[in-house]
């Protein structure tokens, strides 16, 4: 077990020191699922596969779960709960304290012109503050450039689908087809399906599908949910897409 490069670890297991990346200049970066016990002990806190990137001097535990724990600079999809004097209260996952979204944290927003969001509307936002002692904070604008960069209210028809956190992470990968092994979106939008739709993926296990056509929204959402729940491989995804397209016609 210790001999493989990607061992499966349980909480509290010892990490073989040969696997811990040691880079001459870059400091070691710990990702999700690991904790550092001073002075030099690193222990996993969840069960999953240990992934190490010696070039980047980083390591993390790859695992799947369904409860989102806010982390800084994650992209999330939130539901507006209510509006306060200066903030919107946004729900990132059920039964957790709401995150705050300042009224002015939108592109081009001023006191007089700001988006009016009703309870229940959706926003695509970035987590700016994630601290265990405070409620999380999100924003829909980049604080440095003042640009929205695709963030903001999710409007013009669409629907949110719940997926597992691991699946959302795969969808968010830069190469979700090669690394995440997810092809459904390309297939549905490409030659196979010729559907036109837009998506927004939240790290909190939510996928928003927007389209003029309601049928398209449902088909894409179902394809994603089924791929996640039934753990479909690339070949099975192709089969599923063919089946769904046939059903639609």
């Amino acid at each position, binding site marked *: 077990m210790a001999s493989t490069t990607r061992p*499966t670890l*349980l909480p509290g297991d010892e990490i073989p020191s040969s696997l811990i990346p040691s880079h001459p200049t870059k400091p070691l970066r710990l990702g999700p699922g690991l904790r550092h016990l001073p002075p030099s002990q690193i222990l996993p806190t969840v069960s*999953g596969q240990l992934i190490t990137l010696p070039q980047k001097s980083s390591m993390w535990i*790859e695992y799947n779960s369904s*409860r989102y724990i806010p982390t800084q600079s994650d992209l999330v999809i939130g539901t507006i709960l209510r509006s306060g004097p200066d903030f919107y209260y946004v729900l990132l996952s059920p039964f*957790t*304290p709401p995150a705050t979204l300042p009224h002015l944290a939108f592109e081009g927003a001023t006191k007089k012109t700001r988006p009016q969001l009703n309870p229940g509307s959706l926003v695509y936002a970035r987590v700016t503050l994630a601290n265990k002692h405070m409620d999380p904070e999100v924003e829909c604008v980049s604080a440095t450039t003042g640009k929205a960069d695709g963030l903001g209210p999710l409007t013009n028809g669409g629907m949110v689908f719940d997926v597992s956190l691991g699946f959302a992470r795969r969808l968010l990968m830069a190469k979700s087809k090669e690394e995440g092994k997810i092809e459904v979106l390309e297939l549905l939008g490409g030659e196979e399906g010729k559907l036109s739709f837009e998506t927004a993926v939240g790290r909190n296990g939510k996928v928003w599908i927007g389209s003029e056509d309601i049928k398209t929204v449902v088909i894409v959402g179902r394809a994603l949910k089924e791929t996640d729940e039934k*753990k479909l*491989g690339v070949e099975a995804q192709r089969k599923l897409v063919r089946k769904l397209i046939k059903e639609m016609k």
Partner: protein
Amino acid sequence: MTATSEPEAALGVLPRADGSAKYSHAGYTVTAAVNGPIEAQRKDENPYEAHVDVIVRPAAGVGGTRERHLESILQSSLSHIILIKNFPRSLIQIVLQVEDSPENDYVNTKLVQGNLNFAIMPALFQTAVLALLSAGVPMRATATATAVAVVFHDGVKRTVVDPSPREIEIARSVHVLAFTSHDELLLAESEGDFIVKEWDEVYETAKKICCHSAPADDGMQMALDEEAAAGPDMRHFLRSTMESKVAADLYWK
């Protein structure tokens, strides 16, 4: 007669819960659901750590004093392995539903209030740990538990692992022990008359079951394994269960 069945477990059986597990061993079947960290009620809110809420539901009827006692024991030992300091002001809820328990052919099975059933504790504890692992709740370590009874039969003393209801009936003392994956004693509850020497024997037996690490391939280990065949190898069971879960989750890797 000990129920010598190997432990069995299934993870993620409840799709709506954050994590869930179904575990059966020694005649007991328990299903657990874990939700958390979620927002705690005002009265349960602790500014420094998460509140761990354990709810035990019996197979029939509603829980009483007995279940409350089991809950308090489980709550305090589970709080030790969950990283509760990471989630202040939140709640981690663990619901344990007993589905099946072995019947006692010898005595009336009417539930007696205040009479603690120790034999069910390892099943409850193990299910809770499996469900926590399935939910991905950050933990310090994993843990395994077992029940051991000291029985005097025809003047001969025997230690029985995973005792049946009949054996508990005639046992002089019953003990429940749990160990973390760092071989630390996490839970030790005893009932009945016993002397320190007996407890030491019970401790050694339980430790062998809970902390026996995965079998190696060389002949020496094999001989030892046969010796330790008195009970199941809980740690190996936990690891293989989790390894198959992780492998299923990361099928795309």
